[in-house]
C-alpha cells in the first residue's frame, strides 16, 4: 500500500495511556463530588477535597487531555504530511516520559506539593518535566511538518502548530517561580500581578488545550468519518486567526470585580464577547459541512459525536462571554455555575470529540472495524445525559447560590447565613453526582468498545497469518 510505516504503536500508546489517566481522573471526580455532600468521605492527609480536587483537574487536563492531544496529533500529523514521524524513537520515549511525569504529578499533588495557581499546581521540578515533554512534542511536530510530503498544510496542522507555540509560552511564563527547596516554590509574581499572569495562563490553557487541539481533531476527523469536505476553507482561515488573536486578551474576565485594574477587566470582557465570532466560525463550518447531507447523523455513528461536540463548544462559547459580563458575573461568579460551565466544555465538547477521534483511529490502526456501533451509541447517550444533568444542575444551583448570598430582609439585613445557603445546595450536589455516575458508566462502555475493537483486530490479524 505504501512504502513507509506510520508510528501506530506510539499513537496507540498515548490513546491507551490517556484513557487510563482519564479513568483515574473521572473516578476521583466522582469521589470529590460525593465529598461535597458527605464530608466524612475526606480521609486526611492525602485524600481530602483540597488535595483530590487538583488531582482531578490535573489528571484530566494533563493525563486525559494532553495524552489524547499528543497521540491524536501524532496520528493527524502523519496522515496530513504523508510520512512517519521524523523522530519515531523520540516519540516512543515521549510516551514513557509522559506516563512517568503524570504518575509523579498525581503523587506529588496528593502529597500536598501545590503551587496554588489553578491548572498550574505542579511544583517546579515537574514543571521542568512538563516543559521537556512539550519540547519533545514540538521537535516531532515541527520536524515532521517541515519534512512533509504534502505541500499544503491542512487546517488541523495550523491548530496544532498554534497550540505548540502558545502552550509553551503560557506554561513557561506562569510557572516562573522562586524555588525554596525541591518541593516548594513561590510565584515570581506577587499579588494583583500574580493574579493577572495566572488568569492570562488559566484562560488560555482552556484556549490552547481544550480548544485549539480539539478543533484540530474536529477539522480532521469530521470530514474523514463522514466523507464530506469542510464547508468553507475561507471561514476556517478567518476563524483560526481571529481565535488565536483574541484568546490572549480575555484572561481578566476571571477577575471581574477583584482589585485588578478596571481597564484590564473591561478589555478582557470586550474581547471575550468578540471571541463568540471565531468560535462560532468553527461551529457554523461544522454544521454546514454536515448540512450537505444530514442523513450522516443516522448512517454514520461518529457524526453525532462531532456535531453534539461542536454544539456544546458553541454553547460554551456563548455561555462563557455571558458570564464574563459584570452584571452576570456579580451573580454567578464563585458559585457552582462555574464548574457547571467548565464541565459542559470538558464532558460535552472535549471528551466527546476526543472519544470519537479514538473510535476512528483504533479500527484504522488495527485494520478492522469498530467492535460494536450499538455500544458506541449507548456510550453516546449516557455521556450526553450525564453531562446535561451535571451542567444544568450546576447552573440552577449556581444562580440560586448567587441569589441567596445577595438576598436581604425588608430592613436591609442579609437574609441567609453562609451555611444556610450551603444546606440548600445538597440536593443539587447529589444530583450532580448522579450525572457524574451516568457519564462514568457511559465512559466504561466506551473503554469496553475500544478494548474489544483492539482484541478483534489482533484476532483477525492472527487468523490472516494462520
Amino acid at each position: 500500500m505504501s512504502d513507509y510505516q506510520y508510528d501506530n504503536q506510539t499513537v496507540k500508546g498515548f490513546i491507551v495511556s490517556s484513557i487510563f489517566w482519564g479513568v483515574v481522573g473521572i473516578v476521583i471526580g466522582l469521589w470529590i463530588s460525593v465529598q461535597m455532600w458527605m464530608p466524612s468521605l475526606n480521609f486526611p492527609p492525602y485524600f481530602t477535597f483540597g488535595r483530590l480536587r487538583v488531582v482531578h483537574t490535573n489528571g484530566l487536563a494533563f493525563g486525559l487531555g494532553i495524552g489524547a492531544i499528543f497521540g491524536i496529533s501524532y496520528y493527524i500529523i502523519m496522515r496530513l504530511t504523508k510520512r512517519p514521524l521524523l523522530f519515531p524513537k523520540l516519540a516512543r520515549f515521549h510516551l514513557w516520559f509522559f506516563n512517568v511525569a503524570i504518575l509523579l504529578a498525581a503523587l506529588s499533588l496528593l502529597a500536598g506539593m501545590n503551587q496554588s495557581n489553578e491548572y498550574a499546581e505542579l511544583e517546579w521540578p515537574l514543571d521542568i518535566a512538563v516543559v521537556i515533554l512539550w519540547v519533545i512534542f514540538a521537535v516531532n511536530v515541527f520536524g515532521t511538518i517541515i519534512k512533509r510530503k504534502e505541500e499544503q498544510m491542512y487546517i488541523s496542522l495550523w491548530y496544532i502548530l498554534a497550540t505548540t507555540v502558545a502552550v509553551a509560552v503560557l506554561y513557561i511564563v506562569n510557572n516562573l517561580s522562586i524555588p525554596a527547596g525541591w518541593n516548594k516554590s513561590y510565584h515570581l509574581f506577587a499579588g494583583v500581578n500574580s493574579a493577572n499572569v495566572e488568569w492570562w495562563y488559566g484562560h488560555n490553557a482552556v484556549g490552547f488545550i481544550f480548544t485549539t487541539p480539539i478543533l484540530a481533531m474536529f477539522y480532521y476527523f469530521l470530514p474523514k468519518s463522514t466523507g464530506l469536505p469542510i464547508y468553507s476553507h475561507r471561514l476556517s482561515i478567518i476563524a483560526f486567526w481571529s481565535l488565536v488573536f483574541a484568546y490572549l486578551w480575555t484572561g481578566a474576565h476571571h477577575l471581574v470585580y477583584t482589585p485588578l485594574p478596571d481597564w484590564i477587566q473591561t478589555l478582557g470582557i470586550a474581547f471575550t464577547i468578540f471571541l463568540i465570532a471565531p468560535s462560532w466560525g468553527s461551529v457554523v463550518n461544522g454544521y454546514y459541512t454536515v448540512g450537505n447531507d444530514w442523513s450522516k447523523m443516522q448512517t454514520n455513528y461518529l457524526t453525532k459525536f462531532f456535531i453534539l461536540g461542536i454544539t456544546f463548544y458553541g454553547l460554551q462559547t456563548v455561555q462563557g462571554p455571558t458570564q464574563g459580563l459584570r452584571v452576570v458575573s456579580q451573580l454567578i461568579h464563585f458559585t457552582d455555575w462555574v464548574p457547571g460551565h467548565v464541565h459542559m466544555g470538558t464532558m460535552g465538547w472535549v471528551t466527546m470529540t476526543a472519544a470519537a477521534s479514538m473510535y476512528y483511529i483504533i479500527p484504522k490502526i488495527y485494520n478492522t472495524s469498530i467492535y460494536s456501533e450499538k455500544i458506541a451509541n449507548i456510550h453516546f447517550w449516557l455521556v450526553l445525559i450525564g453531562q446535561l444533568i451535571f451542567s444544568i444542575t450546576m447552573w440552577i444551583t449556581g444562580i440560586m447560590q448567587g441569589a441567596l448570598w445577595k438576598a436581604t430582609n425588608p430592613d436591609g439585613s442579609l437574609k441567609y447565613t453562609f451555611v444556610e445557603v450551603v444546606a440548600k445546595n445538597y440536593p443539587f450536589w447529589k444530583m450532580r453526582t448522579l450525572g457524574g455516575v451516568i457519564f462514568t458508566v457511559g465512559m466504561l462502555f466506551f473503554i469496553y468498545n475500544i478494548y474489544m475493537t483492539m482484541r478483534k483486530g489482533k484476532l483477525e490479524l492472527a487468523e490472516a497469518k494462520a
Partner: protein
Amino acid sequence: MADALYKKPILFAIVAAVVILIGTAVTMFIPMLTPEMHPKLANLKPYTALQLAGKDIYQREGCNNCHTQTVRPLKTEVMRYGEYSKAGEFAYDRPFLWGSKRTGPDLARIGGKYPDQWHEIHFDNPQAMYAESNMPAYGWLKQNKLDPSDIEAHMKANDFPYTRDELAQLKDKTELDALIAYLQVIGTAVTKAK
C-alpha cells in the same frame, strides 16, 4: 503571499506567535512594568515565620479550592464579609490566593474575626459548630510539628525578615497553630487602618 503562509510551517509559527503575543503584551507584559500592578498598603507587613508556615499549609491543603480571599465591591458582599479588597493588600502573596469558588465563605476578612480558640474548635470538627457544613476536619494538623529549617528556607525565598529567636520558637508550634496565625493576619492591613 498569503497562500505561502500555509506552505511554510516556520513562517506560520512565527506569525502565529506574533498574533498570540499582541494580547499578551497589552494585557499582561506591559501592565507588569507599571507601578499600578505593584501596589502595597502602607501598613501591610511581611508575614512572620509562623504566619508564612501557616500560609504554606493553607496552600498545601488546597484551602483555596473552596475559599476565596477577595471581597468584591458589592453591597451585600461587603455586608457579609467586610471591607472590599484593596489592590495593595496582596503584595506579599506569591501567588495571590483569591480563589475562584466559594464552597465555603470568603476569608479575606477572617483575620481577627474570631478568637484563636474558635478556630481550634472549628478545625477539629466543623460539623459540631455548623451541623450542615461540608468542610473536612483539620484537627489532625495539631499532631504535626513545624520544621524551622524548612520555614527558614521559605522565608529566605520570599525575602521576608526574621530573627533566630523567632525560628527557634517554631519548633514547639504545630501546623494548626501556624494555620490559625495565618488566618488571623489575613486582611488586617485594611481593618487596622480604619
